[in-house]
């Protein structure tokens, strides 16, 4: 392979306790720690490992988001990506629009492989990868937990309810990364400095000829209901009678 393209979305860090804006228009991101979506980080790690095995020549990290998403791309570059492209927009980008935008980048870069996370932990849509494969009219391997390459094909293992499923897809293809695909590396500090000198290109949606076409309207964002305080029961008998009291037994 010559090129692998990886999508990195900027999301609220998974350690942050999410707080909803008082007017319910979304979650608070001001002054909140932002990170690469963890599944996207796994996607990048996999791309880097493929490259380090000598099976690819270049890894391109791409993101669609605000100017600040440069920071996530820089982190991607520090991890080892060769260059990065930011499609800059302050608007909310839905999965279909994200897939249309990524397709434009694919047309420009012609990668043999695109890897994205199976979902982003902010809106949990889990659609972008699949939509992209459909628009690109190429095969897809979703929720990948293992992947190998031979003869222009990827052999993909997926964790499904009944066990492990193995499929073969022709390249070029889209893969979406699952949790157990790998454990991403730590960024080494000298690589952070090197990343500053790697190319990071910024383009606008206009440059790509994309007009956002939202399909969804967010009516309201609510925090999850507060969980009721539990009770401790002494023993099994206590548990049984507590369940009976609640009419559950």
């Amino acid at each position, binding site marked *: 392979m010559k090129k692998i393209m990886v999508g990195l979305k900027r999301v609220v860090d998974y350690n942050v306790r999410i707080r909803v804006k008082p007017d319910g228009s979304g979650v608070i991101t001001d002054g909140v720690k932002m990170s690469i979506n963890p599944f996207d980080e796994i996607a990048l790690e996999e791309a880097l490992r493929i490259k380090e095995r000598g099976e690819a020549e270049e890894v391109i990290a791409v993101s669609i988001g605000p100017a600040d998403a440069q*920071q996530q791309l820089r982190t991607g570059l520090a991890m080892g990506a060769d260059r990065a492209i930011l499609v800059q927009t302050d608007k909310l980008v839905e999965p279909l629009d994200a897939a249309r935008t990524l397709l434009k980048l694919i047309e420009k870069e012609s990668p043999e492989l695109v890897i994205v996370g199976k979902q982003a932990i902010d809106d949990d849509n889990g659609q972008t990868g699949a939509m992209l494969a459909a628009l690109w009219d190429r095969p897809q391997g979703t929720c990948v937990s293992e992947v190998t390459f031979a003869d222009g094909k990827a052999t993909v293992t997926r964790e499904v309810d009944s066990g492990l499923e193995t499929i073969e897809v022709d390249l070029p293809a889209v893969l979406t990364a699952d949790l157990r695909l790998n454990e991403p590396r730590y960024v080494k*500090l000298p690589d952070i400095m090197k990343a500053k000198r790697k190319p990071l290109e910024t383009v606008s949606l206009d440059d790509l000829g994309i007009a956002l076409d939202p399909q969804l309207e967010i009516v309201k964002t609510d925090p999850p209901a507060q969980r009721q305080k539990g009770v401790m029961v002494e023993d099994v008998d206590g548990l049984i009678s507590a369940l009976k009291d609640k009419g559950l037994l």
Partner: protein
Amino acid sequence: MNAAVLDTTDQAPSESGLLLDASPVKSLFLGQVIHQNLFPYPTIKEDEKETLEMVLDSFDRFLSEKQDSFAQWDEDAAQPEEFLQGLRDMGLFGLIIPEEYGGLGLSNAAYSRVLSQSSMHDSSGSLTIGAHSSIGMKGLLLFGTDEQKAMYLPKLASGEMIAAFCLTESGAGSDAAALKTKAVKNDDGTWTLNGEKIWVTNGGLADFFTVFARTEGEGGKLSAFIVEKGWEGVMPGPTEHKMGIRASSTTTVSFSDVKLPATALLGSEGKGFKVAMEVLNNGRTGLGGGAVGGMKACIALSSQYAKERKAFGQSLSDFGLIKKKIAQMTVDCFAAESVVWMVAHYIDSGHSDYSTEAAISKVFASEAMWRTANEAMQIAAGNGYMREYPYERIVRDSRILTIFEGTSEILRLFIALSGLKDVGDALKDMKKGVEGIFNNPIKGFGVLTDYTSRRLTQMTSVGRDRIVPNVPESLQNEALVYEKYALELSRLADVLLRRYGKNIIGKQYSMQRVADVAIDLFVGISVLSRVASMEADDSAKYKQALGIARLFTQDAKRRMNQNLRRLLKNEDEDMTELCDFIVDGEAYPWDVI
């Protein structure tokens, strides 16, 4: 600094806007507020901020995963080799080494912030990195020749070599200049080194030692040397059993007939004491940053604990006495962070006279950390005392901070003397000026006007308005407190010097009071400056920051008032007599039976 330089009006500000040779604290002793060096509060450059955030994030992840091991390593009194290798792989030994030598080239401020992040997880790990960067190889960075740097910095950056600082000896702790280790120059220009250093942090890990030795006879000058572990006759001793920071390596290092090449001399011959002091001054923000991180960790632990733990049917956080502790911990942390960051900024701007300010940041941050650890322990109480919880380790670990790199006592004396010296110089200049009027009227007159105009300024309050205009309306009262006490300090410094002259050196009670006032002034003004630079919005964070400024200032005002009043009226004689009586008998002589 010569007091005559203190007229700041005709000095051109530097790129950073600072007056690079004007010490703001020493100036306070003359009743002058060098507002250019205090306002606005320094900010980090945007591109360094991005780099720093990535560094913090990466280091944070690395340490988070080791969270469960730190208690074990504390018991084992050692860091396993994998951990050290992890630190090397991450590039953590190169934080402040310039990029051209393979390091990260972080500024002093960014470095201090990194140590604060690591200290939230583990003090021993922070110290391994901190002792390497802040003191172990700082001498090379500040005073090394290009050849010395090229030879060692790349290995120090990668952690192939770990560095240690060897000043203390059994007979030379605070009085470092009393050290006995000797380096004798041979005919061929090489040196022969003999002696023993104690309590060397990283002693058991280091391959690179910065060693201070006497290069002239008894009482003669000191010089600094680079010594490699591989050189024959260099022998690190066994690991010491310590109260805290137990996983950090502390050992003796002895030197027996070690042959040093001529190129091992660091800085000029005979300038070793200066090298040692510059290294320690420059390294204070690392320790200060570490203390701030420790406090942040305590605040997080205590606020969670106080919320969850119930007593008398309420959360601990519902009780006033617990609220007060958590509020105070927060004020202390904010104040320490404000002053440490301010000093780091002086260093990064190339300021040449920041040693008094650095000493203040070290005293304040280390003592604030100790108070905070103690209160965190008190909130967790019985649980806090148990080893399954982190509190007792934090208490043990933080106790060292007021002892090493200059004890609180020594640094207080240093702060007071540095400030008083300038006042003394000004007085001397005035006297000389008066004598000189007859020999050299023009020069003499100049000196005289300088000092008298400054005194006049104080008495008539002209030029007092140096803090008030720099803070928002809501902090005017606080600003007035610092303006007032800066003048009070200068007035009393003048009185003290006229009364005691040179003998002030023996008046330690007075010097401590003077130092404490200087500490409150500089820390307080740093807090004020920081809050004044925040965006004034209606956020809770801003509102609470104003609260911190008020709380700190009110406490500082009480302390300053008390300290200054007691300069002239006190029970110091009773104190001295009592101590002498007890020390003479070496025991407590009373009983109730």
